[in-house]
């Protein structure tokens, strides 16, 4: 919305936030549990869009988000999201590119920041720079009809899963 991306370099002035979405949730769990829930397919199938993921957790490593069973029933291809790991600092920080293959848009930049607040509570902050990707922005904000509740619902579900052992939406 506020993007003033340089037309040639694709970079923005440092005081321009671009079109960025920020989501934060507090979860009573460990940083490692959150890290595993984001990066391991046996966890990612248990919350949110329930898509298995494949991560090569090193800079330049591949990321693939695979179709869930429900997506496959609707005719989705095997790989629905692709991207590349930019930075992996387990269990604190993961930065990656993220592109929805079902949208005709370029790569966006996604980061997960995990902070241990002490007292057994962690803060997970998701920052999704969706500059130049309005379809991805709408999806992340849960504004795409029939395409789920976006990051809010995913993080609410993740909190419930890690705190109670069960997903909100089964």
């Amino acid at each position, binding site marked *: 919305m506020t993007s003033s991306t340089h037309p040639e370099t694709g970079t923005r002035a440092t005081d321009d*936030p671009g079109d*960025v979405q920020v989501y934060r949730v507090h979860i009573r769990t460990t940083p490692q549990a959150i890290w595993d829930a984001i990066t391991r397919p046996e966890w990612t199938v248990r919350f949110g869009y329930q898509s298995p993921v494949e991560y090569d957790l090193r800079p330049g490593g591949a990321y693939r988000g695979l179709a869930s069973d429900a997506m496959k029933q609707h005719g989705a291809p095997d790989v629905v999201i692709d991207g590349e790991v930019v930075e992996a600092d387990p269990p604190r920080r993961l930065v990656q590119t993220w592109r929805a293959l079902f949208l005709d848009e370029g790569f966006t930049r996604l980061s997960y920041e995990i902070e241990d607040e002490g007292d057994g509570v962690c803060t997970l902050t998701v920052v999704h720079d969706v500059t130049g990707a309005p379809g991805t922005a709408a999806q992340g904000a849960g504004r795409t009809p029939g395409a789920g509740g976006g990051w809010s619902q995913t993080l*609410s579900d993740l909190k419930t899963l890690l705190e109670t052992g069960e997903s909100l939406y089964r």
Partner: protein
Amino acid sequence: MRDDDAVFNALADGSRRELLDRLYARDGQTLRELTAGLQMSRQAVSRHLGVLEGAGLVVTRRSGREKFHFLNPVPIQLIHDRWIDKYTERPVTALVDLKTELEQRHDLIDPP
């Protein structure tokens, strides 16, 4: 629960809801941008933003010299998932049952 109290308290003020609406319309604004066009002083806006941030509804991030404010909808989603759903699910189901029952009775009284 304390987290919920902070969210309800933060939402129980028209000025703060207006600030959230402004961030919903355009996310990632500075204090200066958020104050522009409002009948509130910069200090009042800053104080309201502090309450919203304390409740987790606003998250701030620094970029260069500026501090940007972002709307974080997750606390509202949590309240929705843990409270609103719980109370709305049954009544809606009950209304659907009532509709079905009334339609069936109507069929009995006045056959098509």
